[in-house]
């Protein structure tokens, strides 16, 4: 028999268990990518049922179809433009009323819908029953109960998708009351957009939906006046605005429906009891912040303490591989450039990508656990006031903190933020958080010049980074995003036990996406620098005569006013773009000494003042290539270029400023 194809979307509120349903439907095999042009994840998977092959697209978690946020726009565009065969709406059955709101919007649109009442175990535990037959009757669609966390009801859901979507049905008609209905009628007769039910278009027009208004005006300009006219008439009559009135009617319809179809109406206070009790401690007035800081310490420790040895292991492995490769090629009589290409180029290139992998996977694991358990929203709740004062958002705390370990997971952690502006702002200033790779530079210089106050000197650099981040965030906010603050309207979901499978899948999906996308850019960057360091033919790798040496020498005079205008410093900074800790090794190579002898050499080239200026430069100038690649992957070239440019100028100005002003006093 020939297989028939179906394409469906999964829609639902955040925290409705959508991902779990998706994982069960597709067996956890998802293709993860991004929606075109944005960084919102797009997950696609497939399953076979009877003689059907069904491809499933996981839509972003949304509360409504208003197309105000990026997530809503994506979901709406998918439903309106890609015209899938159907949409499964995943509903947290223990919070029926608000969850059904999204479903009613889809049903009004006339989308082919299947309702999936998920988390039925919670409902049953409360001794309640939902009359699914009645729901099915009123909505005119199939209703399937599941407990996705235990895999219950998934087969029934598959069956309903394959068989239930075939039936044709009418759009849901909510009665908006005599007055509004009259105007809907009036508008309905005058407007048409091909492919959309005209009643829905009329309602959207009254609701003030800009996108639909633009589409309608393409069919006839007059519609704008008719809409404004209808709205004005109604609002005068109703005494308040239509937006409110329409949503109110929808919710009134739903609350009636819930009353009718739920036996022993769920006493929600009861359900929230355990969650409430946990919250009483976790977001307690006095304990809330200490607990939050403790949690962050735990996350930070597990990411970098557990990840550190793994990264070191990978690094050592790659070093060994590089040496054996170059020895092997040498013993086989291969040319020197070939062994260098393998050991300094390809293997160290792959290594520089892989070296981040443990940290990134652990970070994503931690984030997945925090998100799945419901604590992530509490963290934002606790920290919002503080971050808000800095011009950022409650959720930007975690990315900033991560930045101290490594900017790459920091930049990626900004994904948890809903507002695109806040997310980009958080990414832009993240490289100013002094990552652990910069520590070897501080250790070398502070140890050589400020042995007695080493701790304070290093601390001052961390502090400088934080202060600069606040200032830069403020300036960029004013410059690019306006003074407008993004509101905080965030659900605090009930606490839930994360499932091992769920968080592992989540971790791997995000981690592999990083490997694929950022990996290529990092790899190419490493190869480019290898070429520059090896050419022209016959030069010593990374010597003054190589292209990179020449480049370093040519711009080193620029750093004369900062006190380190010699070519070795220029080259070291260039290599620092590869990875900041490489600066130390480069000095070793260039001066031909081991790390132990490096202090002596440095003492002869730098003064304490120029050493401090150099440390400030290392802190601020251009993020490492992996961070640049990650910024590009998470934003676009414009923001990437801006980050590189501002950090370079800021670093230079501060280094020069410190050196010049310091000279006056010292």
């Amino acid at each position, binding site marked *: 028999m020939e297989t028939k194809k179906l394409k469906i979307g999964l829609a639902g509120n955040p925290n409705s268990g959508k991902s779990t349903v998706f994982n069960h439907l597709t067996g956890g095999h998802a293709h993860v990518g991004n929606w075109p042009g944005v960084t919102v994840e797009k997950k696609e998977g497939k399953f076979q049922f009877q003689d059907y092959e069904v491809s499933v697209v996981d839509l972003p978690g949304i509360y409504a179809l208003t197309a105000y946020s990026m997530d809503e726009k994506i979901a709406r565009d998918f439903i309106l433009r890609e015209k899938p065969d159907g949409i499964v709406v995943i509903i947290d059955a223990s919070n029926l009323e608000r969850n059904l709101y999204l479903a009613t919007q889809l049903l009004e649109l006339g989308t082919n819908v299947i309702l999936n009442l998920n988390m039925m175990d919670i409902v049953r535990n409360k001794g309640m029953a939902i009359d699914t037959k009645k729901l099915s009757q009123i909505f005119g669609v199939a209703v399937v109960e599941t407990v996705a966390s235990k895999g219950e009801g998934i087969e029934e859901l598959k069956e309903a998708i394959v068989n239930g979507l075939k039936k044709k049905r009418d759009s849901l008609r909510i009665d908006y009351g005599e007055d509004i209905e009259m105007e809907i009628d009036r508008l309905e007769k005058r407007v048409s957009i091909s492919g959309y039910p005209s009643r829905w278009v009329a309602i959207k027009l009254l609701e003030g939906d800009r996108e639909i208004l633009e589409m309608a005006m393409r069919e006839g300009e007059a519609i704008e006046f008719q809409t404004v006219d209808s709205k004005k008439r109604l609002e005068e009559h109703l005494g308040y605005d239509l*937006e409110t009135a329409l949503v109110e009617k929808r919710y009134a319809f739903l609350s009636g429906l819930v009353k009718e179809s739920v036996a022993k109406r769920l006493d929600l206070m009861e359900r929230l009891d355990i969650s*409430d009790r946990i919250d009483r401690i976790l*977001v307690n007035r006095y304990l809330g912040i200490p607990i939050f800081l403790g949690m962050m310490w735990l996350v930070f420790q597990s990411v970098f303490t557990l990840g550190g040895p793994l990264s070191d292991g990978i690094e050592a492995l790659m070093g060994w591989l590089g040496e054996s490769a170059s020895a092997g090629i040498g013993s086989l009589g291969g040319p020197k450039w070939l062994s260098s290409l393998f050991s300094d180029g390809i293997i160290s290139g792959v290594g520089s990508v892989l070296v981040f992998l443990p940290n990134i996977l652990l970070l994503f694991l931690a984030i997945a656990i925090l998100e799945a358990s419901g604590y992530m929203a509490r963290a934002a709740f606790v920290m919002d006031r503080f971050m808000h004062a800095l011009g950022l958002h409650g959720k930007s705390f975690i990315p900033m903190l991560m930045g101290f370990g490594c900017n790459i997971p920091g930049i990626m952690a900004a994904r948890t933020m809903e507002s695109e502006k806040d997310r980009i702002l958080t990414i832009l200033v993240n490289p100013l958080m002094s990552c652990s790779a910069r520590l070897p530079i501080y250790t070398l210089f502070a140890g050589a010049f400020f042995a007695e106050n080493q701790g304070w000197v290093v601390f001052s650099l961390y502090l400088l980074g934080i202060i600069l981040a606040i200032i830069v965030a403020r300036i960029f906010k004013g410059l690019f995003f306006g003074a407008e603050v993004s509101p905080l*309207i965030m659900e605090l979901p009930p606490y839930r036990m994360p499932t091992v499978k769920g968080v592992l899948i989540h971790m791997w999906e995000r981690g592999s996406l990083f490997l694929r996308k950022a990996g290529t850019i990092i790899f190419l960057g490493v190869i480019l620098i290898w070429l520059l360091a090896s050419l022209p033919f016959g030069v010593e790798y990374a010597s003054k005569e190589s292209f990179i040496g020449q480049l370093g020498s040519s711009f080193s005079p620029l750093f004369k006013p900062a006190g380190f205008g010699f070519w070795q410093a220029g080259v070291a900074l260039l290599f620092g773009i590869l990875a900041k800790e490489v600066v130390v090794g480069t000095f070793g190579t260039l001066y031909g000494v081991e790390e132990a002898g490096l202090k002596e050499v440095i003492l002869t080239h730098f003064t304490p003042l120029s050493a401090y200026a150099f440390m400030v430069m290392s802190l601020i100038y251009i993020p490492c290539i992996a961070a640049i690649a990650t910024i590009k992957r998470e934003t676009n070239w414009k923001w990437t270029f801006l980050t590189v440019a501002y950090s370079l100028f800021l670093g230079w100005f501060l280094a020069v400023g410190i050196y010049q002003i310091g000279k006056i006093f010292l």
Partner: protein
Amino acid sequence: MEALTPSLEDYLEAIWTISLRDKVARVKDIAKSLRVSTPSVVNALNVLLEKNLIKHERYGYIELTDQGALKAKEVDEHHKLLFTLLNEIFGINAGIASKDACKIEHHLSKETIKRIEQFIQFLEEDQEEKAFFTSRFKDFVEKGEEDMGDKKVSKADFTLRDLKPGEKGKVIKIKGKGNLKKRLLDMGIVPGTEIQLKKVAPLGDPVDILVKGYHLSLRKGEARDILLEKV
């Protein structure tokens, strides 16, 4: 009539007040009343003379023309209205109220002046209501915004911001427009819905509310846009 500069209006007003009190106004009286030098007064008087707003009688007495008197009376009335608003209703002390009224009076449109006049009339209609209004406003100013949980507060003044942890309210409407309002509505904060304030975050903002059976957090800034009635 041609518009006068604020300072010329002040001169007219001064002449008007002085002549009401002393019957005639002299240059040095005007200088004293406005705290300016005699030569400046003479300068200004020459301009007013040119505009045919005053008559310069013998012995240095100054008298307003009919046109001048009309204008002066208007400025004076505006001053009194503004003074009443600032002093009696807003409760600003007389010195500041008078000084500020002088500054504002020259710049307001007829419509605004008219409305202020109507507002004052409106309050005057019911003295008891006026006393209640002004004393409550005084309380409000003194206690500061934080303590606005007063029982006498009328429905329209009561917002989600004013709830204390554990207290409940019923939504009347959401102020404002656009994105934020739409989002709040979509989340189920529609008229008639009951909201309970559960917690305030450790740093004082945002707040955690229970609405339609789930927890939602909002900043106090957003909470202020949600008008409630007590339940």
